[in-house]
């Protein structure tokens, strides 16, 4: 079935079964491979991207649910890797294997859009992505750095 998708501001027409998970359309059809597959059952968050600014686990969202909405993936976060969260991630040298980090960054951006200066409790409640390398310690510090730079820029993402 042909469907129109808007991903990172670009319209695509894809012809897939409507129940196909958004993740696989993004990765295999649109070849945006920054968004990762790990568990396939909405447990880990490696596949996190945004639909209309809300982080979702794209392995468990049918592509049909994204029709008519704005999808943003890690590739669309900034043209050159200079989103405040990406800069903070580089400053703290967060990634180890890096496999979870696209999803992690998208979750954090989603949180900071709603709460530009989140408390530890909010971070704990909202950032439920898994990182098998356990980079959590630097992630929390990097969220602080990103929040500070967002507030220096005027407070909103």
């Amino acid at each position, binding site marked *: 079935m*042909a469907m129109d998708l808007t991903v990172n501001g670009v*319209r*695509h*027409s894809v*012809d*897939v*079964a409507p129940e*196909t*998970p958004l993740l*696989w359309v993004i990765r*295999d*059809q*649109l*070849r*945006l*491979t*920054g*968004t*990762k*597959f*790990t*568990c*396939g*059952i909405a*447990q*880990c968050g*490696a596949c996190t991207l945004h639909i209309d600014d809300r982080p979702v686990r794209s392995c468990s969202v049918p592509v049909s649910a994204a029709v008519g909405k704005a999808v943003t993936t*890690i*590739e669309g976060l*900034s043209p050159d*890797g200079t989103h405040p969260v*990406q800069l903070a*991630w*580089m400053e703290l*040298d*967060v*990634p*180890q*294997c*890096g*496999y*979870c*980090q*696209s999803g992690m*960054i998208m979750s954090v951006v989603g949180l900071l859009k709603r709460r530009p200066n989140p408390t*530890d409790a909010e971070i*704990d*409640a909202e*950032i439920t*992505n*898994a*990182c*098998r*390398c*356990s*980079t*959590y*310690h*630097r992630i*929390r510090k990097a969220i602080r750095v990103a929040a500070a730079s967002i507030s220096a820029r005027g407070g909103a993402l």
Partner: protein
Amino acid sequence: MTITDNFSRRGLLATAAAVTGALVIGFWLPRRTEAQSFNPEGAAWSNETGDDEVNAWVVVAPDDTVTVRIAQTELGQGVWTSNAMMVAEELQCDWSKVRPQYASANRDAKEMAPAWTLNVMGNGATDPNGGGEPQFGTRDRTGLAGIPDSLYRRMRTNAAASVKDGRYYLQLAGAEARDRLLLAAAKLWAVPVEEVSSVNSVITHRGSGRTTTYGKVASLAAETPHPNPQRIRIKPPSEWTLMGTEQKNLDVPSKVTGTAVYGIDVHLPGMKWAAVKSCPVYGGKVKSYDFERIRNEPGVISAIQFPIPDPVLIRGRIFGGGVAVIADSWYQAKTAIDKMPIEWDVPAANATRNTANIRAALIASLDEPGTVRVNVGDCDSVFRSAARIVEATYSVPYLPRARMEPGNATVLVADNRVDIWIGDQSPQETRRSAAQITGIPEENVYLHMCHLGGGYGRNGNGPQAEQAIYVANQNRGTPIHLLWTREEDFINTTFRSIGVAKLRAALDKDGWPIAMDVRTATDAEAPGATAGFDIAARYFAPNYRFSTHSGRFHIPVGTRRGVGAPAQHFYRESFMDELARAAGKDPYLYRRELIARTNLPYRADMIKALDIAAEMSGWGTKLPEGTARAIALEERGAEAGGHATISAQVHTVSISRDGKVRLERVDVAHDEGFGLVNPLSVRKQIEGQVTWFYNDAMYQECNVTEGRIAENNFDTFLLSRINEDPPQINVTFFKTGHWLDGMGHDRGLSIQSNIADAIFQITGKRYRDLPFRNHDLTWT
């Protein structure tokens, strides 16, 4: 399935023109942007030597960009950066212009290592305590045993050994290239080489002040042989300027933009996807499958049965045979295979195995003679007459590594050439597998290495390559990307063996051990069975016996992070806490005294580690109710007097009355030997291992039910999240007089025994079976 707009085909990088016979493969780089700027069109990896290659590790471009070839795989441990640092330290090049690139496993099949890498003793980097002897194994052409003498020597990524084993020849590689660049400049200026020197890629002639750059003399250097390679001198730690400094990891920028290429991201023209199902009971195979039922599912092309991967190719492990469904997209292949009826042919004995009968068999084995590894003094008679005996039995479960990237490989088999795109921890072994399965010689096997989404003890070598090679060999001319589901990843992996141990000690009237009997049991094939107990004792007991016991089970066991150490460390350090408590002594001071009584070569360092960690943690100061501290010693190589890594950790743990565990802080005293290569990576590894082993202690287990592994995704195999990361991880490095024995895999083990002891202090209950979530942790 079509795409009607003209999105850019970002995944398309390698120029694999799948024309049978005439195959052109672009060399594969981990970043698309870099690869595009390298314009790899038609450049074969094996021909990429180029005019400007100074040696097999170092390529200098006219603009002074230095490409450093990396023979290990980046899986989060920082090797992409630390290996480059070891080369760049000697090369004295501009670090900001260093670009790592994977070394060619194909060239490694064709070329021998330069003679100067074979003679890898200290060459100036001597260790006053004798720790500078590299611990190389025998030279084996295959790389299966020891370190081969093929071009890149050791291409394996394992045993936390990338620095330990690679340092000598990587420093030599940088020094050899530097010497030749200086020689080239001297030749150009017709001056003695002694009068030229270099800093940051700039070469200066002392007398005249003339300067040039590496990039300008690189092609001349490429033609200038080293006059005396056996005399190449590498810098001792006192002369390091780059090594030992905190350097951000060079792969990180690509990992925050989603551009880093993992095996799973590989797309080739004409590529088809394969989803597989392997027999969930190891040793089983396909009896029948009904492809007709799915033949008309969207995108489906074919199905192929594959045999149990040849154990000879995968270090003896027996997985299951299975079936692959090939389709246009992976999701189509996966959807179809889920609908395809498959009947398995399962060895009856394997299907009767479950966790309980495996554990019971191991516990029974403890009373059999076993293999006596150490026997000092006369344990039996001391036990017979001892006034006081402490005894405890511990157990740990099977554990997989469960990296985030599910196993996958892309393979294209042509008439006389195999190309493999993969994140792999043993490319030399995979090259051999490809040759064995296809009959195409290793010299014609090309591995295009990708970053790996986690390794943790060689997850990069399940049988994903062997399965993919098998399937692609049946589909010659078509690139096949085989990808496991998470559930398949759990099936096609090796496990840290289930284990049990019985420890007994006889105490004297002051509570010090006068005899100790240690019996451990694992699967007979489990590596590392003697870890931590293999010398007279880490902690002094004048009479000491250690025996290993085993059973044979069908679950494939392997080298998960830390290998044998995590389980044995849990037993040993838990028991030390139990002895200290039986003696009514402080567990820190009890350990300290027992180490002081040994004649271990590094006992002073061990004591120092304990002292620093205790002091950092505020050991002995009052804590709120429901909070406790515990301490443990971590060491690797403590017995030998050579390479070693020593640390101690104190964990401060709180437990709520309803049994919720919270890791409040971790204080780590860590040995830096003569010097760490990249202290930033070491910090990151320590931070990661704290939570890795927290997961082991608290949550993780794989149980066996009717011969199969029960937990197979992250809904049942639990991972902690950021909310459980401790608010504080404090690390203090201290200098010692030996080379480090790696630190990527056993630097957080203490948390297991430390949580056990904290639970005991807070709740009064002593638990000896991991994970703790199976126990009642409530208290009043």
